[in-house]
């Protein structure tokens, strides 16, 4: 158990990136992006976990009770908001691409290159 969480996080990241690079559909690709991003939440929260620690909410618990790291949780919250913003933008772009080219396959919307 001592390194499994980190391995899971790395695994999710690699799987997500593989999905992004090979996707044939921009909507599918946007979801793969959120999967890749979820690896950073898993890594952050795993890093900040403390054995025997409680959630960092001190309602009814004495101050100084062992608790997990609150900072990683704050960072994760911000990260989640970022993912909503990015998926919204990419889906909007996907709709535009579809309107203009009739396809959402990123391999077939390459209008300019070189």
């Amino acid at each position, binding site marked *: *158990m001592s390194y*499994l*969480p980190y391995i*899971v996080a790395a*695994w*999710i990241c690699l*799987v*997500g990136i*593989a*999905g992004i690079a090979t996707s*044939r*559909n921009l*909507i*599918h690709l*946007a*979801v*793969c992006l*959120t*999967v890749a991003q*979820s690896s950073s*939440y*898993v890594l952050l*929260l*795993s890093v900040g*976990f403390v*054995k*025997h*620690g*409680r*959630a*960092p*909410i001190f309602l009814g618990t004495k101050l100084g009770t062992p*608790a*997990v790291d609150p900072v990683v*949780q704050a960072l*994760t*919250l911000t990260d*989640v*908001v970022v*993912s*909503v913003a990015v*998926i*919204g933008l990419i*889906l909007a772009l*996907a*709709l535009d691409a*579809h*309107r203009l080219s*009739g396809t*959402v396959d990123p391999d077939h919307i390459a209008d300019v290159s070189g």
Partner: protein
Amino acid sequence: MTLAATLVPLQAVSFALVALGAPLVVLTRDPLRQALVNGVYGVSLVCLFVVLQAPDPALSMLAVSGIGYPLVILAAIARVRARDRRKEDDS
């Protein structure tokens, strides 16, 4: 002591579920079905966050994967399909 003892197996299971869920989401190439699988993956993340003693991220993950992602994804899929259908009708 009891807290940690009960948490360990729960955490192991949650990590395993998340590790399995990610490739499932990526390998589901049909967007509509993928949105569904992604919802399930989101729930597994929520469970993981809860057993990692992170109720705040868990709640926001729940809100995002239960309401945020599905709404925009489904709307995008619906629009793309509607336009594809109309084009077929025209031709």
